[in-house]
């Protein structure tokens, strides 16, 4: 894979406040990458900078190694990309004309425009909307039209700025699947700004995590979710047990972390006295009515159920074992164990299930 787009030493300030400060970032051709981070982390600003729609205080954008603004004009560069915003920004014309707009700007022939527009509408199953006014369609249809408009241009990279956030869950799930299939078919490189883990997992393979305008972690999405570097990434990836503690013992790649009045064993190499955050995925915590002596898990504690919250086909069970920790339990198991608030249980988890980061 070759470098499609990259940036170097980018700095964006607004009202003297730093919004984005990135030393370097490379997007490979054919890749799919999610940009995540808390509100105000600079995600949209990064997308706007990469698409040359935002003025930067410093820094350079490179397109296939060419400096944008010097070796290639911003206008020529923008004709190689497509951007879909959070809001479906459709023009007051028919759906067909909306999708054809960018193609007309590129002086495509009428025949080519008609072909590409209809093909793109077909990708999202909205060919029947072609003659309708863009003002007379639903929110879900409007977002499909914006995606069709973006893909009709056959961009080399597609920038998506939270395009599904204003849609209801079933509609966004359906559109995500349609988009995923279209991207698979066209091989378009995508960069997705999102607040949604499932969108990121569904549409992208890589992830860039921004916090306070800086890149805090990047890489393969599965690896980043398994080894979160910050509390935000841990929570974003679905880890809802984030515990702070102090290392009290350390030997042979194993550490004991004192959390409340318990010592939790974990894999890691930290000095004694070091303050750490322990991330434990809820699916890695086993719950039973009796203590399991034969278990290979290093961490076994008696606990009291604090809450048992039904979530779809499972329950989120909050227990207190000296500290509060969450587990997920399948619905039949909840019934079998008769889990309810106040129930005495035992929890166990392996040392490898605890991911530590120093604070």
């Amino acid at each position, binding site marked *: 894979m070759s470098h499609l787009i990259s940036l170097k030493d980018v700095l964006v300030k607004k009202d003297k406040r730093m919004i984005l400060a990135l030393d370097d970032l490379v997007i490979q051709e054919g890749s799919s990458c999610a940009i995540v981070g808390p509100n105000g982390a600079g995600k949209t600003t990064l997308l*706007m900078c990469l698409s040359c729609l935002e003025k930067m205080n410093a820094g350079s954008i490179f397109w296939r190694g060419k400096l944008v603004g010097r070796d290639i004009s911003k*206008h020529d560069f923008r004709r190689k990309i497509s951007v879909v915003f959070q809001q479906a*920004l459709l023009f007051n014309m028919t759906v067909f004309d909306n999708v054809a707009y960018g193609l007309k*700007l590129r002086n495509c022939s009428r025949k080519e425009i008609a072909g590409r527009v209809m093909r793109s509408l077909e990708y999202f199953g909205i060919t029947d909307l072609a003659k309708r006014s863009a003002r007379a369609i639903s929110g879900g249809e409007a977002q499909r039209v914006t995606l069709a408009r973006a893909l009709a241009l056959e961009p080399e990279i597609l920038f998506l700025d939270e395009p599904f956030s204003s849609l209801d869950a079933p509609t966004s799930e359906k559109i995500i699947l349609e988009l995923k299939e279209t991207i698979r078919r066209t091989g378009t490189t995508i960069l997705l700004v999102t607040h949604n883990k499932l969108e990121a997992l569904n549409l992208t393979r890589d992830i860039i995590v921004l916090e306070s305008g800086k890149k805090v972690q990047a890489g393969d999405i599965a690896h980043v979710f398994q080894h979160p570097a910050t509390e935000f990434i841990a929570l974003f990836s679905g880890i809802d047990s984030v515990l702070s503690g102090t290392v009290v013992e350390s030997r042979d790649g194993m550490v004991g972390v004192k959390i409340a009045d318990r010592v939790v064993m974990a894999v890691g190499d930290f000095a004694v006295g070091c303050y750490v955050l322990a991330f434990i995925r809820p699916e890695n915590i086993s719950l039973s009515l009796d203590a399991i002596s034969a278990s290979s898990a290093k961490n076994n504690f008696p606990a009291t159920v604090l809450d048992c919250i039904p979530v779809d086909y499972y329950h989120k069970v909050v227990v207190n074992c000296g500290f509060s920790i969450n587990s997920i339990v399948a619905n039949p198991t909840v019934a079998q164990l008769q889990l309810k608030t106040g129930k005495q249980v035992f929890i166990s988890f392996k040392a490898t299930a605890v991911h530590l980061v120093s604070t």
Partner: protein
Amino acid sequence: MDLIIDGLIEAIRLLWNGNSEVFAITWLSLKVSGTATLISVFLGVYTGVTIALSSFWGKRAVVVLVNTCMGFPPVVIGLVVTIFLWRSGPLGNFGLLYTPTAIIIAQTIIAAPIVTGISIAAINQLPEKLRLQALALGATRLQMVWLLIREARLPLLAAIMAGFGGVISEIGASIMVGGNIKGHTRVLTTATAMETSKGNFELAIALSIILLLLMIVVNSVLTTIQMKGR
């Protein structure tokens, strides 16, 4: 009451018979106010869009100034234009005072801020990212501006209506810079005022009816276009 009824009957008779003086006054009014509106639309839309899309120090002050100028008294504009066009004034050499051109100049100065102010508001009410979306689709700056004007066409038509309504019904500046010269610079509003002061209520009412009809026709046409654009 008889005065009003007689006046209305005479007015209808004058209109029905196609009085040449009434026709000439109407035609001049249309020509002068139409030209002033047209120039104002070009100036106002260009300035309004430029202000709305630019970010510069003091932008807020400029918008406040434009909004203030929207309600500028026509007599003050008439006075200023008269001074400028006066024989010994800065533009006195052109000999424009008491000509239809002078009325066009004054009316343009009245209408341009109205069109500018409404244009700024029209562009500002569009989603902020629409501009970015157009650029992201590959539009040049000029193509993007044209698209925004197209998107804001409904409020921009309102700007034209407001501009035309402002100048066709204006009297202070027209009488000051035009002089209300019969067959030369007499327009509907100045003629109506003069005939009223002379006690010729029939002619004054006839001219008023024409003025109202003109406004109704022009606004109906623009409103129809506006409704179609929805």
